């Protein structure tokens, strides 16, 4: 890791007061140094965290495969072979489930049959479909972290977004698509925004901690959706708690024929990532938001309203999470059911932290998680490994990202220049 060593002439011996003040305000000072390590250096810890997480997941698979124990009863060599094959079967199923099997793709391309080609590329696009809500959710958390709030309640906001988007999607009839679709999508954002605004204003006005309030609102949202789906929003001809289907004019267009479900939402998500980047790093307004997150005292001293910053931050974060919900309804499921979200909100925490609360990092992390989640579904079918293994791997990755010192100890890396970088998190006591 030669590139990690800062050259002597680069270490600034003296700084003028203004520079220190700016660094103090923006919080960019200590983080400016690791950036010099280059892209590879800053990706090293996340990559190793992902790798270690997958290795531990493999160990877990081995430990829970009875065939391995039986093989070790025969001989050690047989045991090792069985252990290796159990992991190999699982992870190759994960890979082909996430990206498609290369041989099938080549065969399909060779045959020239469109249906076969779509079939072969289906896993890859399905991974992108799974990635889309993660991008929205990860951005919601990342934006919150940058503004200094921990929006742990993205799950509830996802639900509210989905509820409102569904309602607009089926209740407003006779609108052309050009109006109906954006309206439904933004309605999803609005639903989440309201659910983010409440804890935001409570924190700003009363100091009530947003972590508790958003968790509470999660359950309020669940109960609300439970009631709505069993009552006012229940599909007329159904006894199950499901909403009516949304109208065609509110559906996010899909790019390919069946069975590929890849839809416009993915590009909207990428656009939102760019928008968040532009907002936070390229506008004065976003600068003041980041200032609130980096150092509220300095922000107040500089004339930036911390109250407004927190409320705006929570509301925007809520809106992004709400879009995740709206996106799922308008793009994938086309109706709302009770067990609608598979923990997008909580996975998003890991995604935002893995992406170091930066839009580019969030998109990359979301791609990883989307591929894992989608691949795991195939793995469950092919290898009989329950999909929940992914949660275990995700938790491991989260731990290693949150405590980089563990990774550095395992791989004997030298400590990061300018102290441990950690992750930008607004903590419990950090009011």
């Amino acid at each position: 890791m030669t590139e990690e060593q800062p050259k002597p002439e680069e270490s600034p011996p003296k700084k003028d007061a203004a520079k220190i003040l700016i660094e103090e305000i923006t919080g960019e000072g200590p983080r400016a140094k690791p950036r010099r390590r280059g892209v590879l250096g800053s990706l090293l810890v996340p990559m190793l965290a992902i790798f270690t997480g997958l290795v531990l997941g493999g160990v877990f698979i081995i430990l829970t495969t009875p065939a391995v124990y039986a093989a070790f009863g025969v001989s050690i060599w047989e045991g090792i072979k069985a252990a290796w094959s159990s992991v190999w079967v699982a992870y190759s199923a994960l890979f082909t489930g996430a990206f498609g099997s290369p041989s099938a793709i080549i065969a399909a391309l060779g045959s020239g049959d469109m249906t076969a080609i779509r079939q072969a590329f289906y896993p890859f696009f399905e991974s992108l479909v799974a990635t889309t809500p993660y991008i929205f959710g990860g951005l919601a958390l990342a934006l919150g972290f940058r503004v200094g709030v921990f929006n742990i309640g993205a799950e509830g906001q996802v639900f509210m977004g989905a509820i409102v988007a569904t309602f607009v999607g089926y209740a407003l009839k006779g609108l052309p698509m050009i109006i109906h679709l954006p309206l439904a999508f933004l309605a999803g954002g609005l639903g989440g925004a309201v659910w983010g605004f409440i804890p935001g204003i409570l924190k700003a006005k009363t100091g009530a901690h947003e972590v508790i309030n958003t968790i509470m609102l999660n359950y309020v949202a669940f109960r609300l959706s439970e009631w709505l789906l069993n009552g006012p929003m229940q599909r007329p001809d159904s006894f199950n708690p499901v909403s009516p289907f949304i109208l065609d004019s509110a559906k996010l267009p899909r790019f390919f024929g069946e069975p590929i479900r890849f839809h416009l939402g993915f590009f909207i998500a990428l656009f939102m990532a760019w928008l968040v980047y532009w907002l936070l790093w390229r506008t004065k307004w976003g600068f003041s938001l980041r200032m609130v997150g980096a150092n509220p005292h300095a922000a107040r001293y500089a004339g930036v309203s911390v109250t407004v910053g927190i409320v705006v931050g929570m509301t925007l974060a809520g809106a992004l999470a709400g879009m995740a919900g709206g996106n799922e309804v308008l793009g994938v499921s086309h109706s709302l059911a009770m067990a609608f979200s598979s923990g997008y909100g909580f996975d998003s925490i890991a995604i935002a932290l893995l992406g170091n609360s930066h839009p580019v990092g969030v998109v990359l992390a979301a791609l990883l998680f989307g591929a894992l989640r989608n691949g795991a579904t195939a793995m469950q079918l092919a290898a009989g490994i329950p999909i929940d293994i992914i949660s275990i791997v995700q938790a491991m990755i989260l731990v290693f990202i949150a405590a980089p010192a563990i990774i550095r100890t395992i791989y004997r890396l030298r400590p990061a220049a300018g102290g441990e970088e950690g992750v930008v998190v607004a903590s419990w006591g950090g009011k």
Partner: protein
Amino acid sequence: MATIALQQQKIEYVSPSRQRVMGILFILLGAATWFFFSRGTGADIQTKFVMTPGGSTATLPDIILPALATVNVLAVLCVILGIIQLVKPRGFGRYTNWILTAVVGMFILAFLTWAASGKSLNLAGLLNTTLLKAVPLTLGALSGVLCERAGVVNIAIEGMMLMGAMVAALVGTISGSLWIGLIAAIASAAVLGLVHGVLSIRYKTDQIVSGTAINIFSTGMTSYISAKFMQVNQIELNNPGVFQPIEIPVLSSIPFFGPILFKQNIFFYAMFIFLALLTFGLYYTRWGLRLRSVGEHPRAADTLGINVFRTRYIAVLLGSMMAGVGGAYFTIGSVGGFDEVMTAGRGFISLAAMIFGNWNPFGAFGAGALFGFADSLASRFAILGVKIPSEFLLMTPYLVTMIVLAGVVGRSRMPAADGTPYVKEGG
């Protein structure tokens, strides 16, 4: 006791705005009682409250109330208390919270009278389910109290409970002994607690992140084991049975309270024992004083020679073990089998109960009982044919917690150093 118990000083001063808010709240509750419960009730309808728990030998006569008169009297009482609170200088002063409890109690009684008007409601059964539902909530909340009083936020109660529930069922079935299952549940939660401790105390990870990681891990791990083994082979792997109620002689034959309080299984008694132990430990022993000082001002505690890290480790370990007991209740204490994600967010309600109870063991129990009440009442709505959807009643614990946290009704104060990792000077 050589150590002076440092009870929290009750704030005697009641701010004028709080006085007014309370007065208006009382009057509003009174008005709501009249508006919602009194208007629709006919003059000659009666409400019957059954006072004998199911299966009890000792009986108490049922209470039969005229519904309309009862509701009206309760409404008037609430309004009168509200007017006194507003008119009297400084209102009820330091007794305001007691009056608030009484008013809320009257509101609930009026609600029950209205809901069960023309029918009968088993009050003893309601109290029984309330306390049973309060058991895991209280154990979880006590876990939170223990950790957070030492300055470590434990958002992982949910995950620890889930793990405890799964391990208790699995080990309990394999070993054939419920006690071994319980011990294994406690041990598994302690391992998670150790991870939380190492991450947040040694590596100074953000405690919420670490807790979230544990929650995700536990959800994944328990669902994985359950899907791969326990659901496939229910009889050999997921069939632990339950702890049977232990009847305490003499006491259990008291009418009404006897069967409710003295004919339960060990988890129920454990809740009260832990409650007493923790209250005593935290407020009347040297250990508790030290633990609380670590949670309030770790640097000062360190200066006095208290080992901050060790104190926090012990608190987190003990706290997680308590959450493990709470988790075991779900399987070997009530249902007798594990289902995926069966705690269903009760760990987070525990967290709410802890805040609602102001980081105080008895407060935590009170809040746990209140939330348990909402839960058990909601399940009776359908039987009583109440028009309000039960989902809204189930929302109330969360909404009430938010209101409390916002300081509208009362201020709950978290330990000063809660959630902040301790960094030794020069270290």
